[in-house]
């Protein structure tokens, strides 16, 4: 009788001892990310939370390969980013309100260029599909720079979804949007995840958004992951009613506080 093997898929993200230090003008170093470890299971939505300067954007930049780590490893969909980054880039995508698309190109032109960069077949069809899904059709032929913040966010999301990514990294996906547009974006992301089974890692300062979208949360402070777990577990652990209160507890805690770190938090889970 032959042994039946069940295919094991590696997690969407596996990070080990990831560290980033930047030199300072005085000849010293500042540690932006300090030997963090975490994994993100496939198909999950994970929130990366922390105050300004906690290390969220630096972490996401290293996950994307835009920033080279000082130490540690990043595996995306089972691929070592340091050695085979280009093998996995076509399977992931990224959106941030702080990284823009060329202003003078129209929405259609921008999406067309990126569709070709991701090697899509049937580019026109894909651009049309996404434009309909994200309600972009009316301004497809308008310059991207002339759009409102909400429209720009939807265009950036369309760009991020062009290749139907298995892994989607979102940096503050609803920053500076009105509640209606922000809700629309969250609903779209929920449906996208349900339809494709994609993994989403999102950095956000909006705790309601995190509670609504995320299966689990990584709390960062001063370059370290100081706590982690499902939103409900964090609420129970801190004895709070909202994730915002948990966030404030963590953000305002002194270094000598009783916050859980790394493996301790895992053990607590």
């Amino acid at each position: 009788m032959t042994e039946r093997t069940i295919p094991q898929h590696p997690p969407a993200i596996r990070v080990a001892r990831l560290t980033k230090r930047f030199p300072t003008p005085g000849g010293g170093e500042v540690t932006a990310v300090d030997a963090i470890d975490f994994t993100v299971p496939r198909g999950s939505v994970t929130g990366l939370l922390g105050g300004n300067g906690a290390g969220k954007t630096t972490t996401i930049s290293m996950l994307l390969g835009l920033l080279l780590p000082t130490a540690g490893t990043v595996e995306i969909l089972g691929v070592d980013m340091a050695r085979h980054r280009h093998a996995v880039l076509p399977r992931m995508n990224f959106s941030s309100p702080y990284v823009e698309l060329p202003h003078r190109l129209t929405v259609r032109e921008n999406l067309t260029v990126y569709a070709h960069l991701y090697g899509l077949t049937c580019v026109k069809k894909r651009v049309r599909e996404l434009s309909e899904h994200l309600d972009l059709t009316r301004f497809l032929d308008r310059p991207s720079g002339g759009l409102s913040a909400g429209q720009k966010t939807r265009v950036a999301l369309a760009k991020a979804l062009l290749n139907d990514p298995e892994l989607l990294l979102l940096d503050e996906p609803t920053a500076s949007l009105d509640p209606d547009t922000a809700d629309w974006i969250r609903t779209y992301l929920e449906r996208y995840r349900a339809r494709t089974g994609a993994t989403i890692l999102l950095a956000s300062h909006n705790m309601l958004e995190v509670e609504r979208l995320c299966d689990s949360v990584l709390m960062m402070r001063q370059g370290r992951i100081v706590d982690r777990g499902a939103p409900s577990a964090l609420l129970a652990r801190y004895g709070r009613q909202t994730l915002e209160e948990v966030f404030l507890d963590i953000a305002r805690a002194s270094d000598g506080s009783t916050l859980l770190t790394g493996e301790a938090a895992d053990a607590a889970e």
Partner: protein
Amino acid sequence: MPPNDAIAAHPVPRADFSLRRVGAMVLRYWYLLRGSWPRILELAYWPTMQMILWGYINQFMASSSGGGSGWVAQGAGVLVSAVLLWDVLFRGQLGVSISFLEEMWSRNLGHLFVSPLRPGEWVTALMTMSLLRTLIGVLPAAALAIPFFGYSVFALGLPLAAFFANLIVLGWSLGLLIVALILRYGMGAEGLAWIVVFMLAPVSAVYYPVSVLPAWLQPVSLALPSAHVFEGMRALVFEGVLRWDHLAWAVGLNALYMAAGVGVFLYAFRQARVRGALLQTGE
């Protein structure tokens, strides 16, 4: 969880070098260019103005009222050829630098380099766009020289293609060096895109032979492919001979400078990833 069906519906590129991704970037710059008629006109404006100015200087110096400069009179249109070829070098360098700066101005590098685009493909696209911009700029000026001065630079024949190729390749090397400097020093260095090439002008012997330069400066001049191209151009115009030695020097030196340009660019690109500069670009 296995890869979803949607992924399978959209084949993804696996090649180390993809002409399609190069084409995508050329398309990106072409969209930008075609979206603005003033930009296209501006490309041809300066080469045309320069050609007309130097064309009349050429005519005046060759005429008896202008002192009948024997040197200029020996070769019809030598200064027109020189100014057009100089513009190939200048436009070639500017084409690479400006296309790169477009990404900096639009803060687009973060999106580009999380896509499957590789640095080598981007460089190839920058060079392709530089070639297109140079042709758009220089060809109308070269064509206008015929009705204005009865001189066609195309009469130089096939060697013109060799001169053109060597000058634009030197322009690309300089362009990559400037890109590397901007990646290193940020937008504070963007002015280099418009000035660096002019440091080469005096020693490139564009309008006069290398022998005019002081003896100590001549080796510097002869270390530049451009000086060999302009010496070769004058030999062709004045004597009707193709100086293979100058051409060989130009090709050899260009290979050296291109290797250095690509090396410096790749190093600067990697350092930008170390410092996080790809996300922190823009004004």
